């Protein structure tokens, strides 16, 4: 087998990269100064995803291939891609560093991290995979609540915690009892796995007769992180559910009163013929109504407000009320990071539902469907207009 003409440089040693961050591939073209490359995906790495050209006046060309995987930017998951270069005769090859049997493979994980964190990790000669995602001795869960070793989650915000499994091995302990063991060291493929601590908590009532609220994640190297379920202070019927930076759903409860403010659009005047006066009269077309809610986040510590920032920057946010979910955009006019000597502050949130239209139906209260079937029909007008205003 002849030595391939080209060289390909992967973004990291093992080809791990995040879909939401630049994926810089280095292609060495030698004196030819231009070349073609192909990216294959699919379970057998045989689906042609992209066929591109590169050129460079130097011997190296650098290409950001992240846009090819942009669909994974906001969704957790993992995919693999094979990179090959193509010579003039159409023969595909890896590179001098990668034999045809060991061609360059990218492993792309969903989500992304901030430039600040990239810079900080680079300064420490590290990356997000060795620092967090693929290190079972630290907080490797795909939550943005915290990167510290203790993950505190209020009981009414508890969602399954996801992680990228390949190579990880750990036990979940309650006090000194192992209640669950996970061993992914023999996994061949990278997979996204989760642990539902809410379900585990219920299961333990049956198996060890305890209601537990704290779990320790323990590896061979020792105690890695802890999951602490904290007690919610007040009940709430309003929550925001959003996809965090890793592309995993999380929840935030809105503790205080949620107010509704209709955003009524300007009406359009139209002329309509009136048969009684035999002339045109000016009438108003139906206005558009937007649903805007204002709420307070409840008092949040500095760490919790960082988590709030992740929600504010999320592209997928749902307003959850009475078991229903509505897509919305959330903004705030409150200073999120303030010097408060460690005191928690509350944040004002403006929640604008994406569904706006000509008709209004309330969502902040249970619709009493029994009204529709009341025996005397007293709640129903001839056009039914007062059932849903």
């Amino acid at each position, binding site marked *: 087998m002849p030595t391939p003409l080209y060289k390909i440089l992967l973004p990291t040693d093992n080809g791990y990269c995040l879909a939401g961050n630049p994926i810089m591939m280095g292609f060495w073209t030698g004196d030819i100064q231009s070349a073609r490359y192909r990216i294959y995906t699919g379970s057998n790495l045989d689906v042609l995803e992209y066929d591109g050209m590169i050129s460079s006046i130097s011997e190296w060309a650098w290409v950001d291939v992240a846009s090819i995987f942009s669909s994974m930017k906001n969704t957790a998951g993992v995919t693999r891609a094979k990179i090959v270069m193509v010579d003039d005769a159409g023969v595909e090859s890896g590179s001098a560093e990668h034999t045809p049997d060991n061609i360059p493979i990218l492993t792309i994980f969903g989500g992304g991290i901030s430039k600040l964190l990239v810079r900080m990790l680079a300064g420490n000669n590290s990356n997000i995979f060795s620092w967090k995602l693929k290190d079972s001795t630290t907080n490797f869960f795909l939550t943005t609540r915290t990167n510290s*070793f*203790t993950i*505190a989650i209020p*009981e*009414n915000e508890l969602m399954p915690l996801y992680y990228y499994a390949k190579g990880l091995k750990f036990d979940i302990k309650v006090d000194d009892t192992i209640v669950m063991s996970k061993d992914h060291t023999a996994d061949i493929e990278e997979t996204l796995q989760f642990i539902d601590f809410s379900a585990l908590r*219920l299961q333990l*009532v049956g198996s060890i*007769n*305890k*209601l*537990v*609220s*704290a779990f320790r994640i323990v590896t061979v190297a020792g*105690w890695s992180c*802890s999951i*602490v*379920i*904290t*007690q*919610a*202070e*007040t*009940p709430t019927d309003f929550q925001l559910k959003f996809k965090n930076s890793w592309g995993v759903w999380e929840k935030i409860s809105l503790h205080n009163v949620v107010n509704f403010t209709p955003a009524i659009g300007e009406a359009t005047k139209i002329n309509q013929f009136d048969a009684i006066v035999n002339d045109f009269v000016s009438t108003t077309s139906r206005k558009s109504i937007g649903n805007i809610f204002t709420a307070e986040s409840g008092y949040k*510590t500095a760490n919790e407000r960082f988590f709030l920032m992740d929600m504010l920057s999320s592209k997928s946010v749902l307003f959850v009320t009475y078991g229903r979910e509505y897509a919305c955009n959330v903004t705030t006019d409150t200073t999120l990071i303030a010097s408060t000597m*460690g005191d928690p502050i509350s944040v004002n949130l403006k929640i604008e539902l994406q569904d706006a239209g000509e008709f209004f139906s309330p969502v902040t209260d249970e619709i009493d469907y029994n009204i529709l079937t009341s025996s005397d029909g007293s709640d129903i007008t001839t056009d039914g207009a007062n059932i849903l205003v």
Partner: protein
Amino acid sequence: MLLKETHNIPVAAAQIENMSAALVLFRNYKDNQSLSMERFIDFLNYPSQERNDFFNLFSEEVIVVNNRYAKRILTSL
């Protein structure tokens, strides 16, 4: 006032050491012998003043675990 954080470490929700005994206590508390464990767990997982009052029937011990979090351990009196 519910203890949420102590010395900047989170306080875990109540840990009940003996759920069977707690269910008996709950049935007496609600004056209803037919209440199921499922209903009891629902009650324990939903914040309310009634739940706080019920927790006051237990002996409570707070343990700080390796300075990472605090556990509230409830045992029947």
